[in-house]
């Protein structure tokens, strides 16, 4: 067997539908023929049929597109970068943040500000931690750089509030201690959305 078959890189051309790029009509008779053939083509009725079919699909086959947003929500991807969460250690319940300050250093919009001190056991303790969400661009560097997976991006995207400060304190972002069993671990940068299977579609070539 030769290699010609594998050297043929022209793989996508077989099923292309070529446009009819013939020359436009020149004399009156062929123009008239073109007008006539276009006039009797049932394209307008194809349009009517398509809209009627879609109405049938929507009403009787449950293919309505609309998501009634405040009442139903689509699942968001674990990679989504919304308001940050501060996670706790599952065993002790203590917050994971070790006060290293890397997130403050890497933040490209300078919106994280933190202050630390030594507690009585000479361990670093976070005394102040705020994120200015008026400046945060949700780039995700802070979550990426965090050595302890302490700061991650959560899924809280509905951040309408009377003031931005309502989200930005350490205690606001920290997992409540009584919800520790519900704490979601960050699934990693390659994680797919929970409804990824439903979103799989045929590629256009397969239609």
């Amino acid at each position: 067997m030769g290699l010609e078959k594998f050297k043929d890189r022209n793989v996508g051309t077989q099923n292309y539908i070529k446009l009819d790029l013939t020359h436009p009509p020149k004399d009156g008779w062929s123009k008239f023929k073109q007008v006539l053939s276009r006039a009797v083509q049932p394209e307008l009725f194809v349009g009517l049929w398509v809209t009627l079919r879609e109405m049938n699909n929507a009403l009787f086959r449950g293919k309505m597109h609309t998501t009634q947003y405040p009442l139903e929500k689509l699942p968001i991807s674990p990679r989504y970068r919304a308001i940050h969460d501060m996670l706790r250690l599952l065993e002790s319940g203590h917050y994971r943040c070790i006060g290293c300050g890397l997130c403050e250093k890497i933040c490209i919009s300078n919106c994280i500000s933190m202050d630390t001190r030594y507690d009585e056991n000479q361990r670093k303790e976070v005394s102040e931690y705020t994120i200015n969400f008026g400046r945060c661009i949700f780039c995700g560097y802070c979550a990426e750089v965090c050595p302890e997976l302490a700061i991650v991006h959560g899924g809280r995207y509905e951040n309408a509030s009377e003031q931005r400060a309502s989200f930005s304190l350490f205690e606001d972002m920290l997992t409540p201690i009584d919800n520790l069993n519900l704490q979601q671990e960050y699934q990693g940068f390659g994680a797919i959305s929970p409804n990824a299977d439903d979103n799989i579609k045929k590629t256009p070539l397969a239609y």
Partner: protein
Amino acid sequence: MDATILPEVTAVGVIIKAVLILAVISAIAGFGTYIERKVLAFMQRRLGPQHVGPYGLLQLAADGIKLFTKEDIIPQHANKIIFSVAPAITAATAFIALAAVPVFPDFTIPFVDVFVPSIASDVNVGILFVLGMMAAGLYGPLLAGMAQSNKWGIIGSARTAIQFLSYEVVTGLSLLAPIMMVGSLSFVDFNDYQSDGTWLVVYQPVAFVLFLIAGYAETNRTPFDLLEHEAEIVSGYVTEYSGMRWGMFFIGEYANMITIGVIASVVFLGGYNDWWIFAGWFMILAKIAFSFFFMLWVRAAWPHVRPDQLMWLCWKVLMPLAVINVVITGLVMMAG
């Protein structure tokens, strides 16, 4: 039908019918906006108005409250009198046109035994009257666009002039062939002509299609809604309007849609004659409803045409076809 007033036609009856037409048609015209939004939404697989009332039915009331309570803005350099009067022209002519179209078969009110001819006034030039009124309606958009000192309005009114005037010709010529066959201008005679069950659309399919196309152009419906084409001229002749004045334009437009539906039903589609097991009043309601639905359906399916295409279609295609149709109808009638 002779011009003498029938004994049953009393002044009180006419006034009651006029008030009924005004109330019912404006309610239906308002309801039509809801239907239009719903149907268009379904055809695009959306839900449409959903939250005000069950299935969004009270959206109509919400819109009404909004339109009534909105501030009435008259632009600084507008001609205030004409600017204020123009919406009334559109709404009034649309309702006046409905005076001469019959909607239901004549009936007798039970218990009180009052015979009611279901037409406000059976003028013997009914078709001319209705067409004339709809043609007079063009003064609404025309004056509105010119009075508001806005360039989009000016373009809109220029388009009004070319579109409505041109398609008036096609409407008249396409209705001429049925008029020749029936030999009368009264809508009641048209209805009675088709009482044997054969609709006029069987004899005059070309005239029917031409009338529909021209009717869409005259009611400013989608393939031809160049007067307020959002993508090109913001909102055309209604650019500067707001609140109730804007609402009157739309009540007029929807009333005109109903009028076109009634004319198409009575002249071409058998009117309010009984058909098979269905009563006449049901048949005409079904026909008008389908005609209304078809307007929305077309709006969902078909794109706009350009103004030059509109003119091309009118003068080079539709008008010759209409004239040929009239000539052939005349020849056949002379031969037969």
